[in-house]
């Protein structure tokens, strides 16, 4: 091996290589398949993810290390997020195929793009260098733009993709502008060196402030936090439901990883400058997300606004700034993956986007409706579910750090959120069936995903110890 591509480098890059290889294989293999046999693509997707997981596991066996002169860092942080991406991608693949068949858009490229998005996300969790992070982010975002527009015949899907692309590209541009300022400050793009340079500058240094403002704008866009959330509802609504789930989970937590890497890394020393901004964004997200969700008539839009509120809770964990807060973010994101995908997969089973479409669903399909109650309780943050633990840790972190008002705001919005989440329960259980009952696209994949998400959401709530241990080991160094 030459000196600029060592074994260590290879080891650090391997999961992404595997994902890319399987992605390419899927693109090629697709030409051989008929529409009806396309679900065989899962035979490439799932093994690809499994091998990636095997590599991640091997990475986890060694201690933290860096590769490519520090461009990549394999540490508990990266592993935690990569495992979540892996689970997300697997669940999304499982819930997608029947949905796409019904929508008559079952193309192999779909799975390839899912893997490519995950490969991009890999660099968001692992990268510790600005260009790597930027290119990783763009690879992921680009895959998402295409996935959102995947229902090419549907205008809603086109428009959603276009809106997402325009605002996504804009936010990437602003983010890149912030990166360029960081480079201007430090003369290097490696985060560890930038951290030193930023720490050496005085408090409230103008250049650092510009970098913080622009980077915060860019990243808050990506995690759909207010006031940069305006793309989310339309995009979530127009995208194919399986992609909406992927977007709400994969894209959000990958961008969260980027946000944490930047604000707890190079920008950590400027906390007093960015903390007020984050407080504003968090409170705005909670307010906008929760209040706007109340008035929605579309279940997808409702969940979109609720995901804005979840971004607010995650930011609260960052604001608290102690180890409990980080642990809270880890637990919250972990729970978020399962409960959100679970909720969207039930929407896929309902085969309708409007809240009305859920009417009487519990009578027809209790096996989907009952887990949905668990997901919604978890999203609201009630015990005994995984979502409760996330909120518990976030509140604990805020109280530990003396931010009582923020804790109170967060707690009050739990009650507000229950109101709109339970509008879905009301539709499913308390209202009579609507006249037009669409077919339910159940499939083995959907059932497996339902079982897995339901089991984790409830199981982690009833016996959380293993999950807390995992989370404690992941974000704390």
């Amino acid at each position, binding site marked *: 091996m030459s000196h600029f591509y060592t074994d260590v480098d290879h080891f650090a890059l391997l999961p992404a290589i595997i994902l*890319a290889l399987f992605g390419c294989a899927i693109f090629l293999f697709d030409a051989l398949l008929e529409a009806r046999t396309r679900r065989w693509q899962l035979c490439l997707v799932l093994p690809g993810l499994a091998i990636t997981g095997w590599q991640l596991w091997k990475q986890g066996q060694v201690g933290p290390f860096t590769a490519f002169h520090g461009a990549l860092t394999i540490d508990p942080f990266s592993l935690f997020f990569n495992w979540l991406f892996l689970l997300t991608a697997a669940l999304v693949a499982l819930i997608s195929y029947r949905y796409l068949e019904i929508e008559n858009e079952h193309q192999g490229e779909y799975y390839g793009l899912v893997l490519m998005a995950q490969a*991009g996300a890999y660099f968001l969790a692992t990268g510790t*260098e600005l260009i790597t992070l930027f290119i990783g982010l763009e*690879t992921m975002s680009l895959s998402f733009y295409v996935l959102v527009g995947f229902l090419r015949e549907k205008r809603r899907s086109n428009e959603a993709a276009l809106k997402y692309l325009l605002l996504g590209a804009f936010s990437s541009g602003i983010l890149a502008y912030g990166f360029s300022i960081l480079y201007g400050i430090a003369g290097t793009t490696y985060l560890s060196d930038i951290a030193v340079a930023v720490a050496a500058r005085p408090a409230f240094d103008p250049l650092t402030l510009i970098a913080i403002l622009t980077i915060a704008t860019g990243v808050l866009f990506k995690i759909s936090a207010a006031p940069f959330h305006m793309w989310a509802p339309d995009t979530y609504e127009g995208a194919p439901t399986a992609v909406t789930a992927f977007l709400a989970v994969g894209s959000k937590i990958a961008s969260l990883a980027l946000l944490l890497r930047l604000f707890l890394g190079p920008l950590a020393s400027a906390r007093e400058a960015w903390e007020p901004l984050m407080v504003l964004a968090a409170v705005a997200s909670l307010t906008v997300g929760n209040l706007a969700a109340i008035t929605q008539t579309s279940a997808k839009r409702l969940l979109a606004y609720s995901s804005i509120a979840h971004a607010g809770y995650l930011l609260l964990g960052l604001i608290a700034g102690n180890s409990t807060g980080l642990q809270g973010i880890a637990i919250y994101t972990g729970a978020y993956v399962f409960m959100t995908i679970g909720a969207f997969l039930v929407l896929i089973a309902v085969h309708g986007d409007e809240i009305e479409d859920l009417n009487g669903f519990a009578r027809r399909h209790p096996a989907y409706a009952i887990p949905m109650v668990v997901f919604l309780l978890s999203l609201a943050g009630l015990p005994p579910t995984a979502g409760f633990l996330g909120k518990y840790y976030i509140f604990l972190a805020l109280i530990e750090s003396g931010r009582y008002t923020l804790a109170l705001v967060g707690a009050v919005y739990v009650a507000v959120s229950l109101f709109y989440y339970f509008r879905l329960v009301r539709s499913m259980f308390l209202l009579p069936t609507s006249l037009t009952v669409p077919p339910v696209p159940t499939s083995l994949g959907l059932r497996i995903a339902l079982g897995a998400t339901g089991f984790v959401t409830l199981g982690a709530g009833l016996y959380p110890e293993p999950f807390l241990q995992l989370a404690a080991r992941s974000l704390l160094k």
Partner: protein
Amino acid sequence: MNLDVFFFYAFTSLALGGGLLAITRRSAVHAAIALMVSLLGVAGLYLLLQAEFLFVSQIIVYIGGILLLFLFVIMLVNLDAGKGLRQFHKNWPLGAAVTALAGIALAVLLSRAQLPPPQQMPATGNVELVADTLFQDYLVPFEVASLLLLVAVVGSVLLARKRA
């Protein structure tokens, strides 16, 4: 007046003037031409900054590639059919106001900014220097960029192709 200063202002006015024209034109074709002017101005700035490789890339990739793509699409979908319609959002003052506020804030900050002391560029040629940096320090993004372009190709073909 120093020649450098003259060129700086000349290229700057091209870049910014072209940009302003590009976002205000009614006709998309005119906008594209204005954008070309702007990008040429930016390329000139690269030259002033002794980034020859980027100067060439800017001209080939942007003006040769991206702009052509724009024009191609404009012709294909007959964008100028919409010329008679309203060109700005109903709530454009909001967008403009937000931008103005952000601009003022950033400008004020920028006017107080202190850069670290400047360094001298190594004496090696620009292309060589860029190549060295790219392939030694930035191998990862280089490899990931291939993924990025692959996604772009697959995605744009997928979206643009007619249903079989």
